């Protein structure tokens, strides 16, 4: 059941996700999603084209296609450490220095990374990929790396959006990508304590599927869960959509085993909470591959929920919506997931409605729209939608649902059906595919996130969006950008806000550079408005510029001293974070 090492045969080498799944505009000019993996697969999306053209000023006539195949001869030749290679061979751990393998592990999914791949450009890529099969293999690999002074970059699912996987261009040592994908077994399940001990290379969807077979789940569902790995979640402090029920990764892990140049670090017991000095798990979580490789994790599991129900609420405006989410958080009655999309994102979601199968549904849709806009007087250019997901036993879900809808009603919210809710969540899985479609037509974009105290949410959302618009205008972007946000998580003291930002780059000489500057400005705006540097994407190299101001110089010193002790020769040389 081990995953294929030649993963690039089923997945795109220069875009998101599976090779068989992608958006395209068919001969009739209608958008279509290919493949058979998703609910949306094989469907036609009649309104996407109009939305796409009117939002971005894009046109199906103006194409910017990607380089079709990977030109292996353009990939820099590997510079190998022969002594290391020699010793590695003797351990029997599989490895490769084929161009395809190396290129696939040289990047995450930042815009600039994908843009370069589409143009067939390659920077510094790892010189070698190794596939350890278990914890012991990792210990051997790290040991050899230390002995021969080789740079290691751990690789999990490759879904990073922080430039964390980028090889430092000036690294002169041999760079080895340590791919954990073969370490994907569930080693044991402890039903008494509801924990599972799992190898860190397992990807989210496999973990859930395998646990489901035994009637359990972790409930940890980051948007990237199809591809991202358990080890990656730990290394970046990941957050899952249903954290309100299951918690974020820091709430879920019970035990972590990590291999460092200095040795293996782990706790000696699995007590549910301990008071034994600063928690060493918090050195590991968020270390972003700078200290070692996470090999095994004991994670909490839960019995699979008996009942799931989606839902949605329409609010007259974003302000009311945020006020409602705040109240829900205050009463601590948030459903498994509650997300609030702004108006632009609501319209975007609408554009992704598949072709309706019957006249009756379309009639119903029309009726709903009439009710909300005409009868209830909601302005279609201001209204916004919250999507909900309830989980648990049936009775309690229904009770919970009523409680939340009652609160929503106080803020002018109208229940808008399960269907809208479910479509909202589907969007998160296909959005990354949509970016590839945009890039075929001169549209580039990305998402970024932050967390912010409640009293700042509205100000931050407004200011960041406005900053994006202003920066684009000042930097010569010819078309107004799409700048939209949603509140994706609620906490006692604040919320997580997620932004999408995209624009049509026709007429720009260096779109990626301009994109980067606008994103940089947007991050400055976030920080100036009381937002955090990151809620769950991590820092990587993309955001490390702001680390000192985020955690103070002393804080940086603390992290540095740990790094110095754990990895004095900078074997884990990705140079993330610090």
């Amino acid at each position, binding site marked *: 059941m081990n995953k294929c090492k030649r993963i690039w045969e089923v997945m795109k080498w220069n875009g998101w996700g599976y090779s068989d799944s992608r958006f395209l505009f068919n001969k009739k000019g209608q958008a279509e999603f290919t493949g058979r993996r998703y609910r949306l697969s094989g469907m036609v999306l009649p309104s996407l084209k109009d939305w796409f053209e009117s939002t971005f000023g894009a046109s199906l006539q103006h194409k910017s296609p990607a380089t079709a195949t990977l030109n292996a001869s353009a990939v820099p030749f590997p510079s190998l450490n022969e002594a290391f290679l020699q010793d590695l061979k003797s351990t029997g751990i599989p490895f490769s220095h084929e161009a395809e393998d190396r290129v696939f592990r040289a990047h995450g999914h930042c815009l600039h990374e994908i843009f370069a791949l589409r143009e067939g450009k390659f920077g510094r890529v790892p010189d070698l990929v190794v596939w350890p099969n278990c914890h012991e293999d990792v210990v051997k690999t790290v040991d050899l790396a230390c002995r021969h002074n080789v740079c290691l970059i751990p690789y999990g699912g490759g879904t990073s959006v922080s430039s964390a996987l980028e090889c430092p261009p000036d690294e002169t040592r041999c760079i080895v990508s340590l791919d954990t994908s073969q370490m994907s077994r569930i080693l044991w399940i402890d039903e008494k304590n509801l924990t599972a001990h799992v190898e860190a290379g397992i990807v989210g969807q496999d973990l859930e599927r395998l646990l489901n077979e035994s009637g359990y789940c972790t409930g940890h569902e980051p948007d990237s869960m199809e591809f991202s790995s358990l080890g990656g979640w730990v290394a970046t402090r990941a957050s899952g959509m249903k954290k309100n029920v299951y918690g974020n990764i820091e709430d879920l892990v019970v035990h972590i085993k990590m291999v460092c140049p200095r040795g293996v670090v782990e706790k000696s017991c699995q007590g549910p909470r301990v008071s034994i000095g600063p928690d060493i798990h918090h050195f590991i979580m968020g270390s972003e591959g700078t200290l070692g490789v996470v090999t095994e994790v004991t994670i909490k599991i839960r019995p699979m929920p008996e009942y799931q129900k989606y839902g949605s609420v329409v609010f007259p405006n974003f302000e009311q919506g945020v006020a409602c989410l705040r109240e829900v958080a205050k009463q601590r009655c948030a459903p498994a997931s509650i997300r609030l999309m702004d108006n632009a994102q609501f319209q975007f979601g609408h554009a992704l409605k598949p072709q309706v199968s019957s006249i009756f549904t379309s009639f119903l849709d029309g009726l709903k729209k009439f009710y909300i806009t005409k009868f209830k007087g909601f302005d279609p250019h201001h209204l916004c939608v919250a999507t909900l997901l309830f989980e648990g036993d049936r009775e309690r879900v229904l009770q919970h649902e009523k409680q939340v809808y009652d609160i929503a009603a106080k803020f002018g919210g109208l229940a808008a059906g399960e269907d809208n809710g479910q479509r909202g969540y589907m969007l998160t899985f296909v959005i990354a595919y949509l970016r590839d479609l945009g890039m075929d037509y001169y549209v580039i974009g990305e998402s970024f996130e932050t967390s912010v105290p409640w009293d700042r949410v509205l*100000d931050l959302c407004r200011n960041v969006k406005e900053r994006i618009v202003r920066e684009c205008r000042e930097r010569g972007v010819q078309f107004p950008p799409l700048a939209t946000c949603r509140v994706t998580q609620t906490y006692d003291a604040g919320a997580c806000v997620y932004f999408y930002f995209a624009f049509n780059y026709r007429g720009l000489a260096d779109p990626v550079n301009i994109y980067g500057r606008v994103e940089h400005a947007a991050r400055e705006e976030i920080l100036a408005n009381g937002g955090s540097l990151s809620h769950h994407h991590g820092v990587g190299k993309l955001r490390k510029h702001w680390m000192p101001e985020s955690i103070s110089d002393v804080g940086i010193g603390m992290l540095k001293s740990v790094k110095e002790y754990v990895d004095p020769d900078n074997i884990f040389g990705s140079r993330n974070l610090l």
Partner: protein
Amino acid sequence: SVSQSCMVRISSLYPPPLALASCAKPRDPALKKRDDFEDILEERRSSSDLRYALRCYVPVVYKGIAPCKPGVLKTAVLQSDRLRHVMSKETGESADVIREEASGILEEMAHRLRLGTVRFFAYSLSKAFKALFQRVRVNEDGIQRLQQSIQEHPVVLLPSHRSYMDFLIMSYILYTYDLSLPVIAAGMDFLGMKIVGEMLRMSGAFFIRRSFGGDKLYWAVFSEYVKTMLRNGYAPIEFFLEGTRSRTCKSLTPKLGLLNIVMEPFFKGEVFDVSLVPISISYERVLEEALYARELLGVPKPKESTSGLLKARKILSEDYGSIHVYFGHPVSLRSLAQGRINRSQYNLLPRHIPRRPSQETQAFVNETAYRLVRLQEENMVLRPWVLVAALLLQNPDGVDMERLVEQTSWLRGLAVSFGAFLDWPDYVSASKAVASSLALHTGLVRTEGGRAQLAMEPKEPGSPEEDLFDRAASVLSCASYRNQILHVFLRPALLGMAMQMAEASRKDDIYSCFSFLRDVFSNEFILCPGGTVQDFDEACYMLTKCAAVHVQKQEVVATEKGQRILSFLTSLFQPFLKGYQVGPAPFLELVDYPRHFCFLGFLPSATSELTCYEALSSDVQKNALAALLRMKVVRKLKV
């Protein structure tokens, strides 16, 4: 190398402000492009005032937000986090008592803008303006820019303040152009005028006590009231940076209180940006002309009263020439603050809890205030008469008409090359300009036998004190016109004086004298703290451009041709030097006696003789005293 290191030190003391540093090479003031004017009275003279006052008025508003009812605004302020915080902090009294008090303060303060009252003013001001003024000229491009700004961001209108007419004119113009009517910060003294005060309130004025030092509740209510209006963008907020009417017609150093308040919502992220709009209102003749001179000589300002206003009706029979109103380019607070203010400093304290602004913020607000006042100055329209007045004051014994015309023409060239905004079209000859200037100001000048002279002889001889008073009053009246052009010549003149003072051509010495003079006069003129290097460069640039000096690496040398310019400049500012040379008053004690002060003639025991009427101006005296105290040359004694 000594001088080099000195310059390095100096420049490192004054980090170049980021946004403005781009003009490392001083810009050429003469190249400034300015908009054209339209006379808004023209239409009033040809169509019905009543219809104008009753016409449909639909202003563009900020993000389509309807202006809010005064009652709603009041509730919003009383229920704001800020006020609740203050109430919870004030101990001793119950929350209800404090709320009552806050409500009372708001009642006294709040505007009650009503369209009906505005229409009444539109009607009656049309009549009054047509009687008083030949023209009210407005740059329509500026109006268009303002209209754009109003829709995008909260707007703060910052007019210059020379007359009570200022805010009436502002509202009148905004009404005329269908722009949102502003709410205006006014002094409480207006409330002394029975009906008029309330009328002003209904046309958008809100009233602030002149001083409320330690009253935390008052400050909280006041600042929250202004910020609520700004945050919600209900209406443009208008106030006078100078704080009060300038009696001397030169700009007053800015007051920072309200500017601080309107900037805070931006610093705290409550609004994306704030547009600051400097507006220059220039009068050919200020209505209060005669009053001001008397006030400067110590006659107390008449108390605002309705009957006083009615008596003032007699001014309706006089001709006050034209008014020019120039709406400057809206200044984006966000752009100004870029790289200057770290907004994340507000992240760790709930935003409704007041806090002293950090030093960097204070410096920024101060600098911005100066910059805005300078923008007001730059766009003040100057009539040829101000040149004539400047020349007449330099020739107290009179001057031949022919010579006056020649000098005026010469001065015009110099002023224009220094960037003065002169309302003197090319087709008007110098002799014509001088003649018509003198004609409009017959009260101040006597022309006889081909000579022009300040009218100093009292109409009917009185006691020596009365004569002196009358003479000083006419000098000060005339000076108020000359003062309008001082900002154009200020920097080059300071350089000229510094060159005289340094008695050598070494650039370092001249710079240090320049810096000293700048310091001395920083209460008198608009000289932004910290801008010495820039001002020095600007002065060198301007004087080099007109070939008056030759600036080398280490020396600044006057040219032959430059003598006339330099001597004009130094004598233009002579009255101020003289004004600062008063001996120490009995309540002052000389504590220090720096070398530079010798030049100014501050002698410990000097009983200075009166050589200059302008030294009698209470304004000059007040500024001189403030400067001496600030520079710690003298100390106040408790008498």
